Each structure stands twice: as structure tokens, then as C-alpha cells.
């Protein structure tokens, strides 16, 4: 069952990637008006049209591109910052640990996406504002996790052995500590991408994310909401694809964690 969910999710995410890359070019462009608003699904517009008569299939695909682009790039930046802060705090001098971890703790005083909302609120909503704001909130949880991992790795015998053989700190960090973090990072990255995609859609739903006419799943849900009394389909598509994406990322993350960390498999 777990294996099935894992591989099913992997296939789904692979298809989503193809959808994001090729979807916007298959029939219509995402900004092109192809007919009257709210046409039912047909041979021409496979999933129907939206409030301005644009092809929903193409806009969903472009939304996938936006979500994946923001999710992957924000998490990449977040991991880099978390690696620097985490290894610095875990491996570095005690005072560095205190300074970095106190700052990280401070970041947790802002729950969830509150800080991102503040940043977007001040800078004004745009693609780069969303990217920056989400990058700021992405790193603290990963930094804390990596720091704990580094702390326990530092005490391992192979590190002591390497140090005893005369290895420098940089050698130890790059050859012995970082390779051991790869598994953990890949598992956490999946869940983190899900979180960022969710945050990006939340901001777009609130109208303070990626701005129109650029499609985003969140803003598609928000506009489709107003007409659901007469037509529910434009609402269902983005809801469905967003929920499935988040679920798939979480399943893959869980699966990777089980693979890399035998202890967690038992806990379920």
C-alpha cells in the first residue's frame, strides 16, 4: 500500500512536470481568448474556458509551471541558507550556535505565512515579492533540523577518526557531514516544496500573490468561486490538481524518509 502510494505519487509528479513544461503550448496559450466565457469542456477547450474565455487546460498548466517554479526555487534557496546556518550552528563555535539558533528561534515567533504576508504587504504583490517572502520563511525549520542532525553527526566516530588523522574542519564538513545529510534533505525538500506551493496558492487566493493575468491555481480558485452557483467545473479543476500535488509531494517525502531513516518506518 505504501509502495503503491509512493510510486503512484512519483508518476503523478512526473506527469505534472510534463504538464507544466508542455501543457501551455498544446492547444492554446494561457493568455489567449479562445471563445466566450464558461464554455463547457469540449474538443477544442478540453477543460472548458474561464471568466474571460481563456482555455482552462492551458491556464492550469501555466499555473503548474508557476507553482513548481516558485516551489522548487524557493526551497533550493531555503536549503542553501539552512545548510549554511545549520552546519554553522551545529559544527561551529558555541557562540555561533547561540547567535544563529536564537535568530532562528525568533523567526518561529511569526506563525506559518504571517511574515510572508507582512513582506508582500510592504513590498507590494508581485512574482518576486512572493518569491522573496517565501524564501524568508522557508529556511528556519530546515535550519533547525539540519543543525540537530549535524550536532549528532559531529559526535560520530568517523568524524573523530577523520579529525585524528589530521583532517581540517572544511574537509570534515564537506566529506563527512554533508553527504550524510543528503537523504534527510531530499525527504524534507519534498514536504517543504508542498508547503511553499501551498503558501504561494494561499497568497494568490488572497489576491496578494502572483498577479493577473499570470495564472496561479490559488487565484483561479478565487475567481471560479464567485460563479460556482452556475458552474462548478472551473472551481473543481484547480482544487483537484492542487490537492493532488500536495498529497503526492507529501507521500513522496514520507516514502523517502522511510527509505533513508529506518527508524521512522515503524512509527508509521
Amino acid at each position, binding site marked *: 500500500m505504501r509502495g503503491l502510494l509512493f510510486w503512484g505519487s512519483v508518476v503523478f509528479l512526473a506527469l505534472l512536470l510534463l504538464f507544466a513544461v508542455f501543457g501551455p503550448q498544446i492547444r492554446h496559450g494561457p493568455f489567449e481568448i479562445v471563445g466566450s466565457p464558461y464554455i463547457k469542456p469540449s474538443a477544442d477547450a478540453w477543460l472548458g474556458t474561464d471568466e474571460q474565455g481563456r482555455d482552462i487546460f492551458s491556464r492550469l498548466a501555466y499555473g503548474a509551471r508557476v507553482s513548481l517554479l516558485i516551489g522548487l526555487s524557493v526551497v533550493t534557496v531555503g536549503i542553501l541558507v539552512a545548510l549554511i546556518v545549520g552546519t554553522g550552528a551545529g559544527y561551529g563555535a558555541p557562540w555561533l550556535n547561540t547567535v544563529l539558533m536564537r535568530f532562528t528561534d*525568533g523567526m518561529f515567533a511569526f506563525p506559518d505565512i504571517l511574515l510572508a504576508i507582512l513582506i508582500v*504587504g*510592504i513590498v507590494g504583490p508581485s512574482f518576486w515579492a512572493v518569491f522573496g517572502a517565501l524564501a524568508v520563511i522557508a529556511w528556519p525549520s530546515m535550519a533547525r533540523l539540519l543543525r540537530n542532525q549535524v550536532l549528532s553527526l559531529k559526535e560520530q566516530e568517523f568524524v573523530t577518526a577523520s579529525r585524528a588523522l589530521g583532517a581540517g574542519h572544511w574537509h570534515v564538513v564537506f566529506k563527512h557531514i554533508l553527504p550524510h545529510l543528503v537523504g534527510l534533505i531530499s525527504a524534507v525538500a519534498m514536504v517543504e516544496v508542498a508547503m511553499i506551493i501551498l503558501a504561494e496558492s494561499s497568497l494568490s487566493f488572497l489576491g496578494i500573490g502572483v498577479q493577473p493575468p499570470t495564472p496561479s491555481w490559488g487565484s483561479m480558485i478565487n475567481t471560479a468561486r464567485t460563479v460556482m452557483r452556475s458552474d462548478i467545473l472551473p472551481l473543481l479543476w484547480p482544487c483537484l490538481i492542487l490537492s493532488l500535488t500536495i498529497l503526492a509531494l507529501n507521500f513522496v517525502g514520507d516514502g523517502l524518509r522511510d527509505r533513508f531513516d529506518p527508524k521512522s518506518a515503524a512509527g508509521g
Partner: protein
Amino acid sequence: MVLLKRVLRSPVGAQVLRRLAWTVPTLVFITLITFIAGDLAPGDPAVRKAGMHGGQEAVELIREKMGLNRPLHVRYAEFVWNAAHFEFGESLVTPRAVNEIVLTGIQHTGRIALLAILLASGVGILLGGIAAIWRNRVADRLAVSFSTLGICIPNFVLAPVLVYIFAIWLDRLPVAWRDDPERGPWIYLILPVAIMALRPAAVITRLTRASMIDTLSQDFIRTAYAKGVPFWRTIIVHALRNSLVPIMTAVGTSLGFLLTGSFIIETAFLIPGLGSASIDAIRKADYPVIQATVLIFAVLFIAVNLLVDLLLPLIDPRIKEGAA
């Protein structure tokens, strides 16, 4: 002094004091961030306040009146001082004072958050407990599926879908919030509270399950069974009480998600709360309102987590025995 020494010497007392002391730098951190954010906001607040027709003199007058000419640290100190007195200045767009806007909002947001956390704790502890007792059985699988879905399905997906089902298709519940003295607020709160509660309920279910599974495998549970303590008494008095610490911590952090979840729910249901006031302010670039709402959300979050941490020694049987 003697009292202070005694408090410091007891492990719980020292822990409580350390926790209280830690709140100070946290508060400094969040006020500093919100203050800097407000200061970095584009445009000159004095120019905006003066409006289109305000000349250079009017702007200078307003700048002087608003105290914008003073150095940064003085203004920060004043910001904190005013915030502590629930004074956030005037809105840049409407002639209303900011604290008036947030005061009406906080009542709506607080009521929904409180109801949602109560519902979520009840459902979460019940489901998590059931899942742990009948581990790997159907009930467990259902509870775990519920919790996975609850964590993954965003509330802005759930809100329109549930509105469609209950308000449009079944026509049982209202679509959005309305001030309705006739029917009272409760019928309007059902959907928002239920949707708000889902994610924390899912998180609490997951944590209760893990924590209860851990506790149920401990020796003292076997001892309780062996000496003939009835099954439910073992579960509630022995297992649940000992699992409460991680559960309560989860309740505290869940409240953070509830507070930010109110941005979505209040926008979706048109509830005039703190969250929708904040989003409204962002659209209008009304920086003092953004500052005030974010600061209130963050302070509430810190306060609740402080409360939870201070309550933990009271509910944790191990700490109490250790102190006695």
C-alpha cells in the same frame, strides 16, 4: 528575595522563569521586524496623509505632527510604547484610527479561532486515541487517512467545496457571513469553524496517535493492566494523561496556523475579522493597519504558546512528582 531564591532552586520554577525571560527578546524581535517593515514601506506617509492637494507646507506640518523627523530608535521606542497601549496611529486610507479597525476584527477572529481550537482538540484527541488503541486496524487506517487529507487539503480548497455542498446544493447553511440579529451568529459560524478546525484536528490526531502509541508501550501501562485497572481507566487516567504534553504543545503551535488560516477563511466567508482587515490593508497599501494586524497576530501566537508552556508543568504528572 527569599521567595525568588526558592523559585529559582525548584526545577519547575527556574524553567518557568527562563521561559518568561525568553519572551522578552522574542517580543523585541517581532516588534523590530514589524517596525522596520513599516519604515521600509514605499512612499512618504506624510505625503499620502496630506492627500493630492496637500502642498509642501501641509506635508511638513503633518510630518512634524506624526513625528517622522525624529531618529529611528526614538521612533521604534515610541512604536513599542504605543503598541503596548494598543495605539497604532491612524489609517492612511480611511479617517478611522487603526485600533478601532483591529478591535472590531479581533473579536470575530478570536471567537472563530477559539471555537476551532476547541473542536480540533476534541476531534484530534478522540481520533488519535482511537487510532492508537486499535493500532493497524480499520479505525487506525481511517484516522491516519483523515489526518493526511486534513494536512494536505488547503482550507481555501475546502471552503468553496463545502460551501457548494452545504450552502448551494443542500441549501442548509449560509454562503457567507452576515450580521444577523434574528438568527444569531452561530449558523454563520458552522462552516468557517469546521474548515478552520480541520488542519489543527489533523495535526493533533497525528500527534496524539504517536504519543499514545509511545505511552501504551511503557511498563507502567502493563503494570496497570496487570494489577487489574479497568481498560478505560488505564487509557484515560494513565495513558492519556501521560501523552498530554506533546498534545498540548501541538495545540499551541496549531493556534498559529489558525490565526493565519483566518486570512483565508475570513476572505472566503467575508467575515470582518483581523485577517480580512489585513488583506484589505495590503490591497490598499495601508501600512499602519498591516503593521498592527501582523503584530497582533504574532503577539497572540507568542502569548498562547507561553500559556501552553506555563501550563505544561501542571498537566505533566512526571514534572509534578519531580517537584514534590
